[in-house]
């Protein structure tokens, strides 16, 4: 276990170092969510009841979808190059390679989420500390699961990588659009709402909105947590299996 922790720390610090060396990169990655927050969110202001309470959690979920997918992309690049192979010949734990990478994605995501929340405060976002903390915790669990799934996808896609681009691009947008991240699903036609209910991200978005409004006891929180834990469990199981089977 101690070797596992040490190996995880090794992988984490390797992944994290470039971010420390070039912190501007972190801000650059946040360009899209920030644009949505300021340009799109401001348009929604007033259109949907208590707009910022509704919109900020949506932006955070959006970041949780794109961030972990890009973590899979960096793994794919290393699989296509020789650096992953080089590390596989060392005694480094296979699982630690996965967990260390996922942790880096999570830490970056957490920093970005906190920044988004802070930037939304002057716009009129009302802070419910307990709800925000619970919401962030849920997002982290979700991104660990999604990150693992994207690692599995990267491993299955190597060496060409085509599968990764096809699947990630064709999955990301339907998941986003059908979850009601950008616009409320209540006004959507019935068939779309049915599809929305099949999308696990919908439950996360609903739970996030309840939590960020301070409604910790809302039933949607329970459903969202269940969906999140299911994704995390499936992701970690498949990810671990893929790494152990060898790349």
């Amino acid at each position, binding site marked *: 276990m101690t*070797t596992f922790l*040490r*190996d995880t720390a*090794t992988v984490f*610090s*390797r992944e994290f*170092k*470039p971010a420390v*060396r070039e912190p501007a990169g972190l801000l650059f990655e946040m360009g899209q969510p920030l644009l949505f927050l300021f340009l799109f969110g401001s348009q929604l202001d007033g259109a949907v009841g208590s707009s910022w309470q509704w919109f900020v959690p949506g932006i955070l979920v959006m970041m949780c979808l794109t961030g972990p997918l890009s973590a899979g992309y*960096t793994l794919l*690049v*290393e699989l296509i*190059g*020789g*650096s992953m*192979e*080089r*590390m*596989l*010949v*060392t*005694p*480094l734990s296979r699982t630690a390679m996965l967990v260390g990478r996922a942790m880096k994605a999570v830490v970056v995501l957490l920093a970005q989420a906190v920044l988004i929340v802070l930037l939304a405060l002057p716009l009129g976002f009302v802070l419910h500390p307990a709800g925000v903390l619970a919401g962030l915790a849920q997002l982290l669990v979700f991104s660990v699961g999604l990150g693992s799934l994207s690692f599995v996808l990267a491993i299955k896609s190597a060496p060409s990588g085509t599968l990764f681009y096809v699947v990630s691009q064709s999955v990301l947008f339907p998941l986003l659009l059908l979850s009601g991240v950008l616009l409320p699903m209540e006004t959507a036609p019935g068939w779309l709402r049915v599809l929305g209910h099949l999308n696990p991200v919908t439950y996360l978005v609903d739970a996030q909105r309840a939590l960020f409004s301070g409604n910790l006891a809302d039933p949607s929180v329970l459903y969202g947590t269940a969906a999140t834990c299911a994704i995390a469990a499936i992701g970690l199981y498949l990810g671990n299996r893929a790494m152990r089977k*060898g790349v």
Partner: protein
Amino acid sequence: MIHARGLTRVFKVKKQAVHAVRGIDLDVEAGRLVALLGPNGAGKSTTLRMLTTLLPPTSGTATVAGHDVARDPAGVRARIGYVGQRTSAGENFRVRDELVTQGRCYGLGTRQAAARADELLGLLDLEPLAARLPGTLSGGQRRRLDIALGLIHRPDLLFLDEPSTGLDPKSRADIWQHILRLREAYGTTLVLTTHYLEEADNMAERVVIIDNGRIIADGTAEQLKNDLAGDHITITTSAEEEARRAAGIGGGDAEGTTVRLRVPNAAAALPDYLRALDGSGIKVTTAETARPTLDDVFLALTGRSITDDDIPA
């Protein structure tokens, strides 16, 4: 250092079995420099990948650095270094950072890993590049970094997969200088694959020729050349008719006014041959001898040239 028995690897490609390695037996003693030589697709890299635990063998066994590759891969990994065909350093990471990470992958503490990284930067003339990203290095510099990464834990056994492929002649010579110097200093056992004939010929103490997933010859370059190919004598005559008669006397092939013979020891055989031709009234205009190359050995064994890119299925 290495004991492999009946090592086999079958890949499934589009539901068809591809036999990449078909039963390799290989023993390598400590401190040797062994080259696995063969054309592209011969099974050299697959053999190396099995010996380095990257690929489980379909059948057969291998003990590497005292540990079984299938039962104790971690034991093997801790004791060997591996320099793969592709760039070992990640593109987002600075040269020195990658070396430190590599040390930590082998269980060194951060301080120890940093000290070792600096040592290797010096040893492989990489010091001025410590803060650079791999993408900004030249081919030769990248290769030196790959070797540094493979040596971070002072392995007793280092595998190198095509260490000089794709480099210009000057960088190739430079890489070899480093490899040979390391060997002299630390007595590291080196196993490398190559499809450069001169490289195997000049550098390796032992050449293992692999073709179509099997070892077809094994020995020093000199042994292989003497036993399997033989020297060449080439003479030219003034008339084609004389060349044909000269070929008949020596037992060689005539082509125009040129005659080629294969003999065990050309330097000793040439004077006798010239005297015999003189006695038959054949006027020889030029005569030369040549040692065989490993390509001649490969040609004698397979009927193909090692540099042919057509790989038999």
